[in-house]
């Protein structure tokens, strides 16, 4: 397989032949395996460890039309010190125009600034706009770029167009890491999720991300499972490690821990660090903090004692 990977993207036909040559996903099997792994019981000290790990993997996100500089600054303060003895989160994720605000607020903290770009969330804009959107975000101080793929082109089989867009955006990223959002809620089948994962990795993605959070269903467990299998197989084939970021719909500590179990059982513990696995979320952090509080004090926590966002 390694020999053929060099030129799979040499032509539209070769790329299609490669992507359609990937083994199909056993839908029922994937659903069942994800559900089975979701039943693992993680308690006491293991749970405390998992909660802290999950907090350190959070990409704290605000992607609302109503976002303001003040809201982003407040969120950055929370990202640095989520509360109590909890570790800092991995990154904050904002719209491109607020990158400068976040970069200023997080200077010297080691927390990354991620920015969505390329006409997020639909991606329905020209390549020129996508590339300059990316370049401007990087210039403003973004360490990571979350781009969306052209789902229309992908679903109509124009894989080369999707590939070339990712390559162009990756070039515009320069030193910044590129996360490619597959928007699995719009990809219809698990086979497409696997194909899109490989396509993004071949084109140079540093991370593959499930969803924008604007489409339901977002990050379901089986989809994350398939993407984790893809990054594992990709590393076996090429030696390059790619990260995974489920985003959207992960709201509870239980969901987060299920994801961690999935990572450990599918990709292995090489991925079990904030460098290679992220959780894109906004309300999840408070639930993690409340569970942390419950473990520390022995009493159930209430949302009155945590920040609103």
């Amino acid at each position, binding site marked *: 397989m390694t020999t053929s990977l060099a030129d799979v993207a040499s032509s539209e036909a070769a790329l299609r032949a490669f992507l359609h040559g990937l083994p199909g996903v056993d839908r029922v099997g994937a659903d069942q395996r994800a559900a089975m792994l979701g039943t693992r019981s993680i308690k006491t000290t293991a749970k405390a460890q998992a909660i802290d790990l999950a907090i350190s993997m959070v990409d704290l996100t605000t992607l609302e039309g109503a976002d303001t500089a003040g809201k982003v600054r407040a969120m950055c303060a929370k990202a640095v010190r989520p509360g109590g003895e909890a570790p800092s989160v991995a990154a904050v994720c904002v719209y491109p125009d607020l990158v400068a605000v976040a970069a200023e607020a997080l200077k010297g903290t080691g927390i990354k600034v991620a920015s969505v770009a390329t006409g997020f969330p639909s991606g329905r804009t020209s390549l020129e706009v996508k590339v300059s959107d990316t370049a401007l975000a990087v210039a403003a101080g973004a360490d990571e770029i979350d781009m969306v793929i052209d789902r229309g082109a992908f679903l109509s089989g124009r894989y080369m167009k999707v590939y070339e867009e990712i390559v162009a955006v990756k070039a515009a990223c320069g030193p910044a890491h590129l996360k490619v959002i597959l928007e699995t809620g719009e990809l219809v089948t698990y086979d497409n999720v696997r194909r899109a994962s490989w396509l993004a990795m071949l084109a140079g993605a540093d991370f593959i991300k499930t969803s924008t959070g604007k489409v339901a269903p977002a990050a379901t467990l089986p989809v994350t499972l398939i993407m984790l299998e893809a990054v594992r197989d990709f590393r076996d084939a090429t030696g390059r490690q790619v990260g995974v970021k489920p985003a959207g719909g992960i709201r509870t500590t239980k969901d987060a821990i299920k994801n961690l179990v999935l990572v450990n059982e599918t990709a292995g513990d090489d991925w079990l660090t904030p460098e290679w696995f992220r959780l894109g979320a906004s309300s999840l952090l408070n639930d993690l903090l409340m569970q942390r509080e419950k473990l520390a004090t*022995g*009493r*159930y*926590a*209430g*949302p*009155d*004692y945590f920040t609103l966002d």
Partner: protein
Amino acid sequence: MSRLSVKKTYKLYIGGAFPRSESGRSYPVTSAKGEFVANAARASRKDARDAVVAARKAFPGWSGATPYNRGQILYRIAEMLEGRRAQFAEELGGGKRAALEQVDATIDRLVWYAGWSDKIASVRGAANPVAGPYFNLSTPEPTGVVAVVAPADPLLGLVSVVAPVIVTGNTCVVVASEPAPLAAITLAEVLATSDLPGGVVNILTGRQAELAPWLAAHMDVNGLDLTGVADAELALSCEQAAAENLKRVARPVQEDWTADPGIGRMTRFLETKTVWHPMGV
């Protein structure tokens, strides 16, 4: 041909649904004479946690409903109870006549509290005299989620502690009487069919000593009614745990449930909001 007997499975009442205990446990309930009657679900602390979540979720809608509407719904509960008089009387056991009297008193108690829904603000609110060009108005507002440990009296006692809590707009998690929980679950069937939004009343059956401490310590519970706690040690520890987030606490009392209730139980779980409003604007 003789029919097979169709026996009722007594479950919990959380968020408008009737789930079994998350723990899967149950305990046998016996009649006053010691005969086995049925198995009741034995709720765990996780059921209590889920019930608090359900009560919190129901709070904005229920406290935001008009008092008139809340009164109508309480009256509706009384209507539904009236239709099931015989069933409740049978379930209460003891003398038939005494049981029917209990049920009637319960229905009357609901109607009495239903009437208070749009009047309590007039009694507890005020237009305060102030030395300035302002209106200064105080109005009572519900406290939030109230955990109620119901007294041993299985029906009249239960309704006498729950109705005053919810009529003012609070939502509640009720720990039913430990030896006699069945009437509480049958009452839940009445609540579920009375337009009472799911989650306003959540009923747990099981060990008081197992559930009350978790509810007392829960940071998302705003009030604690310990009326039914017979064990003084337990009451003390609950009261201490409740202090952590300054819950309003009602201490255990021996009360004659047939007596005129007064408004004390309603006012215990009310906050007072005072607003200043400029005059002539």
